[in-house]
C-alpha cells in the first residue's frame, strides 16, 4: 500500500472515533448514543485494519484482523444489549433519554423499595 493512503486511513480512523465520541457526549436520544458507540467502534476497527495493512509482503497481518473480528462480535453483542435495555427504559419510563444528572438518590427510600428489595 502506498504510504500516503495508509496515513489517510490513520487520520480517518482518528476522525471517526472522535466524531463518535463527540456524539456520545452531546446526543441525548438513546438510539443516537448507541449509534455513536458504533461509530466510535468503527474508528477503532479501521485503525486495526490499517495497521494490519502495513505489514510487508502481499498478505496483511492476520492478528489485527482477528482482533477486529472479535471486536466486531463484542460490539454487535453490546449493541443488541444496549438496544434491548434502551427499549426497556422506554417502556418503563416512557422516555428515550436519560434525565440529565439523574440520581437515584433523589427519590425516597420507600418508593424505591418495590424494585430493589
Amino acid at each position, binding site marked *: 500500500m502506498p*504510504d500516503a493512503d*495508509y*496515513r489517510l486511513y*490513520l*487520520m480517518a*480512523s*482518528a*476522525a471517526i*472515533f*472522535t466524531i463518535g465520541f463527540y456524539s456520545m457526549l452531546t446526543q441525548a436520544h438513546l438510539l443516537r448514543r448507541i449509534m455513536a458507540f458504533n461509530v466510535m467502534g468503527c474508528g477503532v476497527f479501521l*485503525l486495526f485494519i490499517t*495497521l*494490519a495493512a*502495513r*505489514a*510487508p*509482503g502481499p*498478505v*496483511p*497481518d*492476520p*492478528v*489485527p*484482523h*482477528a*482482533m477486529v*473480528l*472479535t471486536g*466486531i*462480535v*463484542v460490539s*454487535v*453483542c*453490546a449493541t*443488541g*444489549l444496549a*438496544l*434491548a*435495555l434502551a*427499549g*426497556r427504559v422506554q*417502556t*418503563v*419510563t416512557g422516555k428515550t433519554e436519560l434525565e440529565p444528572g439523574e440520581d437515584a438518590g433523589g427519590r425516597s427510600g*420507600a*418508593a424505591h423499595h*418495590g*424494585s430493589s428489595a
Partner: protein
Amino acid sequence: MGALSWAALSLPAKPPGLAKASLDRLGESGVAHPVTAVLLNYRGYDTLLEVGVLLLALAGAWSLGRGEQPAENPQSRPLLLSLLRVLLPMLLLAAGHLLWIGAFAPGGAFQGGALLGGALVLLILGGLARRALKRERCLRAGLALGVLVFAGIAAVTMALTGGLLQYPPGAGGALILVIETAAMVSIGLALGLLYLGGQPPEGARRSLLATPPDHA
C-alpha cells in the same frame, strides 16, 4: 483528535507485527487461513471468551423480560414470504459454505453465524418462527452449545496435551471444525434472538415486565 492522529501517524511504517510469525507457523495450526488460525488457534482463548460474551449478551437481554410479539399473521406479508422461500435455503447454504472454507479462505463461524442469524430474523419477521420460539428449552440448549463444546474441548486438550487449547498434533483441523460448527449454531441463534430484545414472547400472556412496576 489531534493527539490521536499524531500518535497514529507516528507509528512505524514498517511495523514489528506478527504477520511473519503467524504465517510461518500456519502449518502447525491445522488450518490454512491465517485469520482463522489466529482466531481458533493462536488466540483461540480470546474466541472462547468471546463466545461466552455472546451468550452473556443474550442472557442479559433475556433478563430484561419478554420481547416483542412477532408479526401476527404471516399470510399478511406475502412479499416477505415469497422472498423467504428463495432466500432461506441460500442463506443456509452460504452459512455452511463459509464455515467450511474458513479453514483456508476468509470465512468461519462468525461469518456463518451472522448469516444464520439473519435467516432467523427473517423467519421471525415472517412469523414463521413462532412455534420454534416457544420451545424455550431447545433454544437455551442451542445457545449454550457453543460455549459448552468450546470449553469442553479446551478441557479435553488440557487432559491430552497438558496445554489449554493445545490441539494434539494433526487433530487441530478437526477439532477446530467441531468448535466452529457448534459455535456457529449458537452465534446464529444468539444474533437472531437478540433481535427480539428480550426473551421470546409467551403465547397470549402479556410480557412479564412490560408494564411499569408499580411506583407507589
